[in-house]
């Protein structure tokens, strides 16, 4: 809890620092603050406590996810040191907004009350609407911000309607009460509850970019500044999934809603992977692949299995690790290619900088789910859950789609390991970036070999 306060204060402190002193110390202060928050989270590890009259609970689940969120944010701040080195405007605001968004993320990892869920999501999202438009002079950035905002607000409307209907049926916002209510009421018998559940899930599905609520994701990923894209695809996604699962974990889902989830999983898997096949812009590719990963994660939701949170946690953590690293590599290559984002900018990466290329390869392989990387273990566990919960055909489809996924990741690897046609500029790798990339690259392998390191 104190961590939450610390984080809120941290954002304000960063804003002040932006006014008074140089930009140089922003990131270090931010990182220090985050690390302090990390310590605070870790300090009362395994200490369950319900706070504020049962609005939030920092149980192991919430704490683990919060920890991942903070760690990833630290990595992103490290990246930011280089990323913002040449930017003059609004750096402090960017950092502060990220921290605020993180607060929202932490809140939705730990909510036990629908009011908190709603507020947390808004706190998570509103800074992001702004951050997506962070490059004020860039048309693409503006478009991204607007699309994100518009669709986000639209989806919020559905989410709210859902929450209202659930309240109408159960007369409570408290998760435990709703669970209890759902346990004693006949499945799907209550139409208000069913509709409410449906609309709430739709609103949450929007946040995790599940089909058909994914439309914002490719455009926003592409238009937003790279650092923000990385933030969205890691911190935001992780938090949103944590909230999603927290919401449905103990509610007795009516069969109809479960069917809906299955169909959504299938759609998401299909669209994300298939459309990614033809992407040439790396960020867009990552957006669609992120949709695809949403599909795999949704698969883990189906059915009830005590292992789901662990799988979710591992999957999201390793996914975030690989994604952060890749976005940094993208930034480096993009700089060398004068702002181009096509995947061909990776061409000859192995010749230009073997170590970066190998790290990038490891991260891509991890996303693709090749053995001995974390991505494999993650996918494997998802498949186990899928089949164990009886969704054999859905899992088979997911396996097929995993193959499609491998294809587009492999295309990127292929570029990196093909000698370039013409001379392109050398990569200028700042030591801090090198460090983060290496950490991520080594991380996905280490977690792939010792999966036990990352668990709730």
């Amino acid at each position, binding site marked *: 809890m104190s961590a939450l306060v610390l984080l809120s204060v941290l954002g304000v402190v960063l804003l002040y620092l932006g006014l008074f002193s140089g930009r140089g110390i922003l990131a270090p202060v931010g990182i220090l603050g985050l690390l302090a928050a990390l310590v605070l989270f870790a300090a009362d590890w395994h200490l369950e406590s319900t706070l504020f009259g049962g609005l939030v609970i920092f149980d192991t689940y919430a704490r683990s996810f919060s920890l991942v969120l903070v760690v990833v944010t630290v990595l992103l701040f490290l990246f930011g040191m280089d990323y913002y080195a040449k930017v003059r405007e609004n750096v402090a605001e960017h950092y502060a907004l990220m921290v605020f968004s993180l607060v929202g993320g932490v809140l939705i990892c730990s909510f036990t009350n629908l*009011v908190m869920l709603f507020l947390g999501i*808004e706190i998570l999202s509103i800074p992001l609407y702004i951050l997506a*438009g962070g490059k004020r002079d860039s048309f693409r950035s503006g478009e991204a911000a607007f*699309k994100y905002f*518009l669709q986000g607000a639209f989806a*919020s*409307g559905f989410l709210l*309607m859902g929450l*209202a209907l659930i309240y109408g049926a159960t*007369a409570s916002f408290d998760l435990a009460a709703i669970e209890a209510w759902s346990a004693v009421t006949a499945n799907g018998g209550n139409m208000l509850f069913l509709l409410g559940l449906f609309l709430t899930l739709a609103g949450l599905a929007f946040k995790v970019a599940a089909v058909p609520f994914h439309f914002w994701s490719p455009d926003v990923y592409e238009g937003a500044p790279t650092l923000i894209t990385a933030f969205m695809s890691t911190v935001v996604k992780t938090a949103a999934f944590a909230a999603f699962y927290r919401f449905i974990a103990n509610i007795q889902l009516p069969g109809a809603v479960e069917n809906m989830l299955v169909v959504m999983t299938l759609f998401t898997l299909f669209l994300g992977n298939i459309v990614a096949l033809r992407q040439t812009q790396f960020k867009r590719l990552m957006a669609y692949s992120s949709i695809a990963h949403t599909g795999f994660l949704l698969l883990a939701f189906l059915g009830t299995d005590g292992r789901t949170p662990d799988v979710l946690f591992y999957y999201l953590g390793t996914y975030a690790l690989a994604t952060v690293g890749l976005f940094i590599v993208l930034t480096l290559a993009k700089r060398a290619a004068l702002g181009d984002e096509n995947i061909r900018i990776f061409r000859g990466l192995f010749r230009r900088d073997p170590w970066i290329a190998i790290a990038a390869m490891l991260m891509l392989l991890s996303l693709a789910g090749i053995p001995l990387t974390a991505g494999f273990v993650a996918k494997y566990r998802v498949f186990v859950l899928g089949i164990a919960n009886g969704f054999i055909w859905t899992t088979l489809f997911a396996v097929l789609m995993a193959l499609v996924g491998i294809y587009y990741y492999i295309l990127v690897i292929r570029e990196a390991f093909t000698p370039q046609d013409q001379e392109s500029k050398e990569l200028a790798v700042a030591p801090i970036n090198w460090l983060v990339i290496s950490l991520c690259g080594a991380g996905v392998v280490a977690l792939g070999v010792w999966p036990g390191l990352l668990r709730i």
Partner: protein
Amino acid sequence: MEQGIITAIRTVPLDHYVLLSFLLFSIGVAGVVFRRNTIIILMCVELMLNSVNLLLTAFSAYHSDPRAQVFVFFIMLVAAAEVTVGLSILVMMKRNVDSVDVNQLNRLKG
């Protein structure tokens, strides 16, 4: 007096409120999809939120539970924040493309 209020509330069946709310919500939804002027789209979003507020208040009255009203209060808060951000994004957009037409925003695609 109390009895009067109860009668007043109970004479209007809850279904009516739910339906009215759905109707307003749907109109808002249709408007969001229907209009090109972003500022009107924003207004339609407000309409959606308000229909939710109405619904919550109705439930609150039927459940005699003030929490829903508190939630409405928070929704208003968020709506205000959202509108501010939305309008400022709109201003930025107007500055960039000199238009508030949603269809102008179509460069990111595929």
